[in-house]
Structure formats: structure tokens, C-alpha cells
């Protein structure tokens, strides 16, 4: 079975919520819809305090090319436009809406019939995706229309759908594939049309055998879509790792996937594309996984963007007593949360409750020079070296050692027998070097 060639680890999977059907989360009393994005410029609010909005109405207009529209996920009155704490603990602009009823825009097709035919031109499809505010739902929330518009002179050859879900615990993409398989495949064919390719590969890790079988059966009715089972290995969901695993091409350092003719999209993004293009529904809800070892009723929930995490967690049986750490996302790359008042953003894939006994960091010891971090690094970097350089502010040397290639997957810190916080230092170095590179322009 195929996988990527350099490095990687295989953490215990702990997919407790796998196979548990999705539930529709209750509407919040007040939705706090973030205007900012993880990447790119924050959107500009187009509503003002006191405005009545419907579900699906445009709230924020994208400002610039690398930015995305923001739509209302609820109906009601705009209470205020103010700063709200996001997952990082810093305040970012957001729109607060007091929820009244659940009135949708008339333009959205709410029927459950599956529309397979798409007559739009590629330009129309990309325009539609951009209007619907679709961003990569894998976590980085990079605007999808940007990825679908290759730079001049570059031509896409293959579309790769990222259905890896290599993070332990998370099951939202898995569940989406089981429940919305056909919609996803229609989404894939729409994306193929948008970038004008006749081959698509859906990469799924082999621990989701039911999803592989389901999609393989459905894919027979579509042309050019291939479902590829891949060996379970973290971080296979990384863009460059997935391209290596599926088509065996290596994206050069500092380059983007289009350099080797590939466009990678997340499976949840593909479903959002289907809904936007065929059902005229902007991106305002997503599936998130609520999970943890001591969680009472863990599962996968359809949540409107802007719902407070506390509201969703309550429906999953509340926060377990022994919680020591709350993580937004998976245990490898997720962010620790300092509060459950944070609202669900487009990139929130789940909430993980880690019991106290497992959450605390172990005591750091001296580096053994065992080079385990070097052998697991999927980008072929030397994390022990980069950590030392970061501690000593050797930014030029770090840049020379390809720090900007780091995908922050955390394999180095995961595998270190001396419990050294490699990723913390490397990430800090990457931020600083990135700033230095930007200031040169």
C-alpha cells in the first residue's frame, strides 16, 4: 500500500467517534461569527448594528484576493460588531447576531435531492465558490478560489482529494464520506471541471475501510475519479505528503503543488463546493467532532459557524470532570484552548478533551543526539538543530536550513525520547524567519 516516502509517525488512532452518525447541533442564542481568517486579510463587514439578517446572507466582503466572504449562519438581528476571543486567545473582529427563528435565504435550495448535472463554465464555478466564501476546511482555511486559479503558465494535471484525516481522534471527514458520499463525488467532478482536468484521486487512509468501499462503489458511476487506499501514516494529510503518496511527485522546497501539476482539496471542502454550486448554499455550517477518552456522548455534529463551542459540548454530555486540556482540532496539530466560549470557525474540525493525567508535559531532558526527530521529519529537516538555532536567535542559519519548509506537524516533538519541546522552538523560529523574509520584500 502506498504512503509518502520520508519520515512520519503512527500515533494511536483513538477514533472513538467513528461510525457515530452526525447529529444536528442546536442553534445558539447568540452567534459570534468571526470576520478574520487564519490566513489572509479579514473580511469587511457589510451589515451594521440592528440589521435583520437571514441564514446565508452576506455579512463580510472579502478584502483582497487572499480573503473570503463571510455569511450569516443564523437568522436574527445584528447585536454588535466587536472583537471576540478566537482559539488563539487573542481578540479578532466578529459579528454578534442575536438569533431569532431560523429563516433561510430563498435562493438556497434546501431539498435533499442530489443534483448531478452541472452546466456552468469553469469561470462561473470559481466565481460561485468565491462568492460562497469557501475556504479549505482541513484547518489552514486557505481560500479555495485562490487554489483553483493557478498562476499563469501553470497547468493542473490531476486533482487530489484529501480524505486522509490522519489526526488521531478526529472523525468528521470520515462520517461526512459515509453520509454524503454521492454529494462529495459530484463536488469532485465540479472541481475537475473548474480546473479542467480529467483525473481525480481521492486519498483515504486504510483505517476507514467502510468509507473506501462506499466511495469506490459510487465512483464507478463517475468518470475519471479514482479512490486510493493509503497506508496509515501521520502526517499524510499534509499537502506535500499526500501528493507524494498518491502520484509519487515531490513538491520542491518553497514551491506550491501546482508546480508538479497537482491541486489538493479537502474532502469537506469538496462537499461545500457541491452545496455552493448545486444548491446555492454558502459555507456557514460544517461537521465537527467532539471527542475525548472520558467523553460521555461523543460524536460528530453539524454546527453552524459562530456557535459557541460550549453549546456544542453540552449536547455531547458536557465537559468531563477529569479534563486537563482542551484542544481545538486533533492532538497533533490542534491548538490548546483557554476557554470554551470560543465560537466555531470555518477551520474548526473538532474539540478534544484530554484527561489531566495525560495532558501535562513530561520533564525535558538533554538531547541524546539519537536523530529520531530527523528520521521522522516528513520534510527532511533536522529539528534538533533548528531548535538550538532558534534558542540562540540564529535566524540566517535557520533560513539556510529550510525552516520555512516546516509544516508544524509535530512528529519531532512526538517522537523525542527526551521530551524536548522541539516544535515550540521550531515554530517560533519559523514565525520570526517568516517575518524577516516578508520585511525584505
Amino acid at each position, binding site marked *: 500500500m502506498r504512503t509518502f516516502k520520508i519520515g512520519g509517525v503512527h500515533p494511536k488512532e483513538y477514533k472513538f467517534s467513528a461510525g457515530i452518525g452526525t447529529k444536528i447541533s442546536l442553534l445558539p442564542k447568540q452567534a459570534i461569527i468571526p470576520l478574520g481568517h487564519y490566513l489572509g486579510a479579514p473580511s469587511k463587514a457589510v451589515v451594521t448594528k440592528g440589521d435583520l439578517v437571514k441564514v446565508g446572507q452576506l455579512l463580510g466582503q472579502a478584502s483582497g484576493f487572499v480573503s473570503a466572504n463571510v455569511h450569516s449562519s443564523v437568522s436574527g438581528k445584528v447585536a454588535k460588531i466587536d472583537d471576540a476571543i478566537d482559539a*488563539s*486567545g*487573542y481578540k479578532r473582529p466578529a459579528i454578534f447576531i442575536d438569533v431569532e427563528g431560523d429563516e433561510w435565504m430563498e435562493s438556497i435550495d434546501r431539498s435533499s435531492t442530489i443534483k448531478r448535472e452541472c452546466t456552468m463554465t469553469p469561470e462561473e464555478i470559481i466565481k460561485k465558490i468565491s462568492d460562497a466564501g469557501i475556504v479549505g476546511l482541513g484547518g489552514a482555511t486557505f481560500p479555495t478560489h485562490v487554489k483553483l486559479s493557478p498562476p499563469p503558465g501553470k497547468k493542473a494535471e490531476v486533482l487530489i482529494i484529501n480524505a486522509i484525516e490522519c489526526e488521531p481522534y478526529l472523525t468528521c471527514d470520515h462520517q461526512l464520506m459515509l453520509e454524503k458520499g454521492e454529494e462529495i463525488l459530484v463536488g469532485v467532478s465540479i472541481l475537475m471541471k473548474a480546473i479542467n482536468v480529467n483525473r481525480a484521486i481521492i486519498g483515504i487512509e486504510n483505517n476507514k475501510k467502510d468509507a473506501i468501499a462506499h466511495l469506490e462503489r459510487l465512483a464507478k458511476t463517475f468518470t475519471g475519479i479514482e479512490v486510493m487506499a493509503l497506508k496509515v501514516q501521520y502526517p499524510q494529510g499534509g499537502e506535500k505528503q499526500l501528493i507524494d503518496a498518491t502520484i509519487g511527485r515531490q513538491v520542491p522546497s518553497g514551491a506550491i503543488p501546482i508546480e508538479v501539476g497537482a491541486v489538493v482539496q479537502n474532502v469537506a471542502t469538496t462537499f461545500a463546493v457541491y452545496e455552493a454550486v448545486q444548491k446555492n448554499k454558502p459555507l456557514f455550517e460544517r461537521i465537527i467532532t467532539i471527542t475525548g477518552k472520558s467523553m460521555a456522548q461523543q460524536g460528530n455534529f453539524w454546527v453552524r459557524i459562530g456557535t459557541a463551542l460550549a453549546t456544542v459540548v453540552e449536547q455531547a454530555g458536557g465537559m468531563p470532570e477529569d479534563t486537563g486540556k482542551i484542544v481545538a482540532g486533533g492532538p497533533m496539530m490542534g491548538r490548546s484552548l*483557554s476557554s470554551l466560549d470560543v465560537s466555531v470557525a470555518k477551520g474548526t474540525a473538532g474539540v478534544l478533551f484530554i484527561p489531566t493525567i495525560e495532558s501535562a*508535559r513530561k520533564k525535558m531532558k538533554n538531547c541524546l543526539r539519537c536523530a529520531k526527530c530527523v528520521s521522522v521529519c516528513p520534510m527532511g529537516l533536522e529539528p534538533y538543530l533548528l531548535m538550538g538555532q532558534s534558542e540562540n536567535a540564529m535566524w540566517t542559519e535557520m533560513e539556510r536550513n529550510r525552516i520555512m519548509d516546516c509544516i508544524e506537524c509535530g512528529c519531532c516533538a512526538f517522537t523525542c525520547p527526551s521530551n524536548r*519541546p522541539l516544535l515550540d522552538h521550531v515554530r517560533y523560529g519559523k514565525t520570526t524567519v517568516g517575518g524577516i523574509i516578508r520585511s525584505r520584500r
Partner: protein
Amino acid sequence: MNLILISLITLVIVGTLSAVILFFASKKFEVYEDPRIDEVELALPAANCGGCGFPGCRGFANACVKADLLDNLLCPVGGTPTMEKVAAILGKTAGQGDATVAVVRCGGSCDLRPRTNQYDGVSSCAIAHNLYGGETACSWGCLGLGDCIVSCKFDAIYINPETLLPEVDEEKCTSCGACVKACPKAIIELRKKGTKSRRIYVNCVNQDKGAVNKKACEAACIGCSKCVKECAFDAITVTNNLAYIDPNKCTLCRKCVAVCPTSAIVELNFPPRKAKVPTKEAELEPAN
């Protein structure tokens, strides 16, 4: 005898030749250095801290000698007296500038700013700042992990074990600005030292709305503008819910300190205020 004579003559010839070569080389490759640079360097504090923006005191002395006007040159350690000495040596007029000192603008001690979560990562402010907002609900305030202490070459900054906040030793601080650069939250400011080292400043950098930051920290500036109204010298401005006292306009009258509802305005090195003599009325009607 012959051997000694030959050696002697050879030595004299080699010596003379070398002397001639060296003489011409020293003329040809001479680097003239203004003797005033040495004089100016002697007048400087010799802290070599780089606070002036030049590499060490000699770099600054060199710049002073080259400059036509001393207006833009200031030794932050010595301040005006030192610059006057320099000016006297060079026969120029000194620019006006005051001695400054580092000031840590956060009053969020443990009891005033409750912890909402626990950080167990790398003990570095820069890394913690890169990860998240911090252990308290105030994402502006001091993280207390000591990057400023590590950066200080003069051992002038230390963590007060009671408040767990950094404090500056005024005697040792050379105002070089290393801690200002090291602090990822931009809490430390180089402020005018003031007469007798007396200073009044806003001990907070939180720009959240008053209602929000009051919940996070009892010592936060809530941007109520009471101090602005109290100040008769227009020294205080409130921008983004945060007051700032202009040290050049402040006359150290201490009126703003008294009106601040959260005690966010701090006075340093003032003699203790006279205890208010309780009036007769107050004695008769004790507060309930």
C-alpha cells in the same frame, strides 16, 4: 671575531632597510583618527550598551565627532549632563534630551489578575506569545516568563517574587532598550527619568474596552478618562481605551494618581503623602 662582525653588519642593514620601508608604509597607509574621539569616549559612561543606536561608546563618540549638530545624538544613560560634556570637548551645542529608564507597564499581579489557564510549555515569553494569549484573560499583559531578564546585560531587571512581575533596578538600568525589544507584548517603555527619578505613568497596556478588561484584571486601565479631565496640563491622552501620560508635559502633580479608579496610574519615588488629618465630621460619622 669575523663572524660577529658579519652578523652585526647584516643586522644593521636589515634593520635600516626595514625602518625605511616601515617609515614610508606608515606615511602611505596612515589612517588619521581624530584625537577628540578618545576624549569624547572618556566622557561617556562606558556602558557599551548600544542604547544610542551605535555599536558601543566608541561608535557613538565617532558619530559625535563627525556630526555637524549634536541635536539627534543622545546618550540615554548619561542624558543631558554627559551630552554637555561632549559638546564642550567638541565646541558644539548639545541637543536637549533627558536621561531615560526602562519602565514595565503592567500591574497585573497574581491577586489582581486571576489565572484562567495554566501554561506548561517552554519558559519563554516569545514562544508563549507565539502560541496563545497567555495564562490570564488579559492578552496584553505580562506573561511573566522573563525574556526581559534574559535580555538585560546589566542585571537591572528582576521578577518581584510577590507580584511575579518584572521590576527595574534604576541604579543598574542603562536604558539600552534590549528589554524593550525582547518583550513580545511591548510592555516595556523607555521613559524620562524625571527629577529625582520621580515618575508617573500608566501601568497598563491593555487596549480592550473597560468592561472587558476590568473582568480580566483589577489593575487595568479602563479608559474612563477621569485622569484626562483632572490633568491641568494636557499631558494625558486616551487612545484605544488606554491612557498615556506624556512625560514631557507631566508636571508630576500626582492629581491623576488620586482619581484613577483602578489604581492603574503609578507614582514612583515620591515621598509618602501626608496622612489626611481626619476631620471632625468624619470622626463623628464613621463610614458604615
